[in-house]
Every structure is written in structure tokens, then in C-alpha cells.
């Protein structure tokens, strides 16, 4: 009961202090919207509406990845620098409860980000036939793994600018390796194994299957792999936190 009070309080505080601030809400809307518009405007200069549905899986995955990693890495680094984070470390709640509370805000923000392109697309194309249950599950799993990647950055960064730099260091290569812009089968052969080491590859594939009915891997395999990534990243983050935050 006591842990739940603390958990809910940390989550509520983060949502109120960070995620519901006007700049972050507008960022959460504008960023996915910009990606959508950018993809819609093709080399011919015209807007290709028929391809919006094709683009949705990639746009949703990118929106989640950028939303979660940026926000969590920056907010934790910011709190650590101001030492308000010490309040959470010395509170009589388990490290796991505290970490999950911090992750939850970013996960919700990532889910919100994911559905901005969907809402936008719904004005232009018919979204019938999408397996919404599978989409929701996939969005949730991508949000968790991306948030955990953000936490890994936050554990290593001491300054906010460091967190931003580290984030981009792995985010951009990830975008090109996970099959968002280029199918994995078209990547140079030596890069392909790397693609399968990225959680986003499995998330994007699941989204493609649920939205446009095209996927290369079994959805069950993708869910299992994403769950394994979640557990592995969570364990690694806890280990790093104990090593780096408790001197």
C-alpha cells in the first residue's frame, strides 16, 4: 500500500511537472506531425495521400522512440543535477518501484506520441481493417523498451546536453537499421545481424503486420523478443543504477 502511494505520487508529479507542460505537449504533437508531413511530401513535391497508411508503422515507431528517450533521459538528468532525484533514492521504497514510477510517465507520453500520426491519418485515409488490439500492445511494448533505453542514457549522463547527445548517438542509426526506411533485406549483409539486436525492429515489424498486413516475423516471436528486451534492459538499468548512483 505504502509503495503504491509513493508510486502514484511520483508518476503524478512527473506528469504534472514535465509531460503536461505546454512545451512538451506541443512537442509531442508537432514532432510526430512533422515526421508525417515530411514523409508525405515526396520527391515529386506533391502530397501522396495513398501512402499514409503505409507510413503509419514507421511514423508511430519513430514518434515513440523520440518521445520516450528524450523525455526520460532529460528529466532524470535534470532532477539528478538539481539533486531532487536524491529524494527518491533515499525514500523507503524499493529501487524497482521508483524506477517503474519514473518509467511510467515516459511510457504514457510515448503512447500519446504514437497516436498523433494515427489521428492525423484518420482525416485522410480509411483506417478500417487495422488490428487495434495488436497495435496497442505493440505501441506499449515499443514504449517500454524505448523508455528503458532512455533510462540507460540517463544513468550514464551527468548533464542534460550529454543525455541529448547520447540519445541521438543511438537513435539515428537505429532508425536506419530497424527497417523503417529501408527493408532489412536490402541492407548490406554485414549490417543485418545488427538489425535483429534492436527492439525497434520487432516493434516496427509487428506494427506493419497489424496496420498494413505485411510482416516478416511471427507476431508471437516479436512479442516474446520484446518481453525479453524489456526484462534484460530493466535488469541492466537497475544494475547500472546501483553501480553509478550509489557511490
Amino acid at each position, binding site marked *: 500500500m505504502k509503495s503504491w502511494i*509513493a508510486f*502514484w*505520487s*511520483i508518476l503524478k508529479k512527473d506528469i504534472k*511537472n514535465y509531460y503536461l507542460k505546454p512545451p512538451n505537449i506541443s512537442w509531442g504533437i508537432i514532432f510526430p506531425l512533422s515526421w508525417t508531413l515530411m514523409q508525405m511530401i515526396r520527391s515529386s513535391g506533391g502530397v501522396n495521400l495513398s501512402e499514409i497508411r503505409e507510413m503509419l508503422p514507421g511514423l508511430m515507431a519513430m514518434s515513440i522512440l523520440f518521445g520516450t528517450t528524450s523525455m526520460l533521459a532529460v528529466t532524470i538528468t535534470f532532477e539528478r543535477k538539481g539533486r531532487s532525484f536524491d529524494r527518491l533514492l533515499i525514500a523507503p521504497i524499493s529501487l524497482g518501484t521508483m524506477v517503474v514510477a519514473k518509467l511510467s510517465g515516459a511510457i504514457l507520453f510515448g503512447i500519446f506520441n504514437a497516436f498523433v500520426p494515427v489521428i492525423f491519418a484518420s482525416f485522410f485515409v480509411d483506417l478500417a481493417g487495422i488490428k487495434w488490439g495488436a497495435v496497442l500492445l505493440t505501441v506499449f511494448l515499443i514504449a517500454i523498451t524505448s523508455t528503458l533505453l532512455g533510462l540507460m542514457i540517463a544513468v550514464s549522463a551527468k548533464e542534460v546536453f550529454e543525455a541529448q547527445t547520447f540519445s541521438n548517438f543511438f537513435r539515428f542509426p537505429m532508425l536506419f537499421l530497424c527497417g523503417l526506411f529501408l527493408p532489412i533485406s536490402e541492407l548490406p549483409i554485414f549490417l543485418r545481424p545488427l538489425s535483429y539486436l534492436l527492439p525497434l525492429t520487432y516493434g516496427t515489424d509487428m506494427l506493419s503486420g497489424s496496420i498494413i498486413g505485411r510482416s516478416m516475423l511471427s507476431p508471437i516471436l516479436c512479442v516474446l523478443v520484446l518481453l525479453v528486451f524489456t526484462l534484460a534492459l530493466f535488469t541492466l538499468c537497475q544494475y547500472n543504477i546501483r553501480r553509478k548512483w*550509489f*557511490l
Partner: protein
Amino acid sequence: MNTTDIVTVTNLSKEYGDFTAVKGISFSILRGEIFGFLGPNGAGKTTTINMMIGLARPTSGTILIDGFDAVKKVKKAQSIMGIVPDESNLYDEMDGFDNLCFCGSLYGMRKDEREKRAKELLEEFDLIKAGKRPFKAYSKGMRRKLTIAAGIIHEPEILFLDEPTTGIDVESARQIRQLLLNLKQRGTTIFITTHYIEDAQRICDRIAIIVGGNIVANGTVPELMESVSHGHSIQLAADKDLEPLAEELQAHFDGCIVKTGTDHTVTLISKEQIALSPVLQYLDSRGISVYEAKELRPSLEDVFVKVTGIEAIELKKEKDKGGMLK
């Protein structure tokens, strides 16, 4: 562990690579007392407090807090602690009331319970009007007071304070000292680090002086002062120069060391208690009127200078810079 000890630290050490910040220190804190930790910069005070509150892991040694191993059962120990760090680290965007409620929730306090307590604390700390203002708009003194309030919202059995009066105005410092004494009266044990020797002398029941990771002195204020005392001293101020009488006084009061000053003063030092009336009668018989007599006692600053080797002048310079003995 003594049944009256709330904290027992034994052979506590902390190493960072080749550097040993804390070198096997041992001390205990009695339930209900104010225990002070004094030491120059880099002495190991913050490292020690961080190990006690669970922010740093000891290399060796044990810390028992209310019977719990504070290293192995850190969360259990943290549940009875209140912690006030050296920097006010509440949330800038949140107002005073919300900050207090948030801190209460981290200790599992229910909404109604923490709101009631937050109101009480704002009133007690004279922050009612500021309760709805964001923390970033607070003055340094107000920030400090609210940080202390946040540290005690869950009514901890032991409160750890790192430099509670540093960098704040005289009135706020006075209020904080009074608040700490009030907390002590209500039974809270307080562990405090301070670089203000006067603060330590005024409010601490016992003091440990730490230098280079070692505790070099530990005891009650009178005990520490006794350790540098060479006996009893009285100083008399008279209406005439006492220099011509120095030898006569020395001969008359056998066993006393007599030192005359330039400002019509004389100091008598003895291993035994010095009775004042024979001295006064003797001087009166020589036509000298005494208008002031006082017993000279060593100060805590004398103790500090003696055990740390830091001269008083250096102490003052550091104090003026605002960072002494942290």
C-alpha cells in the same frame, strides 16, 4: 548496542580507488540527543552522512540504526529517517504545500494525513503565506526551512541535517536553531553537520570532530572543553594598573600563575578551583577596586583549533569566504 543508542557506527571506512575518505570511524548517537559532526573541507563528513542515509556504500564497517543494519536493510532504516541535505533540493515548479505533500507520500502517508501535516508544518515554520508560492520563488532562508519541514513531515525518529544554517540570514538561522531544539524536545534524535562552531556549541549535546577521515575528538561540549583546559582561570578588571603588583600576587597566592594585562586586568590560573573573595579582599587592602570578575573557559573553537591544527585566523578566513569546515 546500548539500549539508549539509536545509531551505532563501527569501524566505518570508505575508499574511492586509492583515496580513503573515511578511515574506520566509530561513534554512537544517543536517542533524543543532538549530535554534531565538525570538520574541515574534505574531512569525510558528507561521505559519512551519505553512508548513513544509504546514498553511498561503505567499503567496510557497520551502521546500526534503531537496531537495523542500515547497509543491508537500507530501506527499513530509511523509513525512520528524515534527511535534510546541504542544498535545498525540493521541486522548483511545485509550491511549498505540494512539495511537502509529495515528500510525505514517499513515506506512504495517506492524502488526508499528509495534507494535515503539511498545513501544520507550514504554520510551525512560519510559511503559511508562502505555502502556495512555487519553491523557486522562496528566499534562501525560506527554502531551508521548507527543506527541513519536508525532512520531518513523516515524523522521523532520527533527522540528518547537512549544514542546516549555511548561507542563510541571521534571523532564519536563529529560527532554524529554535526549530531543531523544539524537535529535540519532542524526542527526535538529530545528527547535524555544521561548519559554524557557535551553532554546534549552542545546540549540540555531543560533538565529534573529524579530520582526514578520522574522528579526533568526541564528547559532550564540556568534556571537549575540559580536554584542552589547563585548570581554572579567573580574570579581574581593576581601576588601576596591576603590573606592579604581579610578583606580590604571585607570592601571595601560591599555586596560581598570575598574568597581568595592559588594560588593568589580571588573570589567575590554577589547577584547583580559585576562591574569589580572598583575591578581592587582598586587592582591596592594596587600595585597588575590582569592577569585573569572570571565569575564563576554553571555547569549542579552542578545542577545534587544538585537535585539527587549523589556526583561528584560518578559521575566520574560511568563515568569511562562507565555506568553512564543510
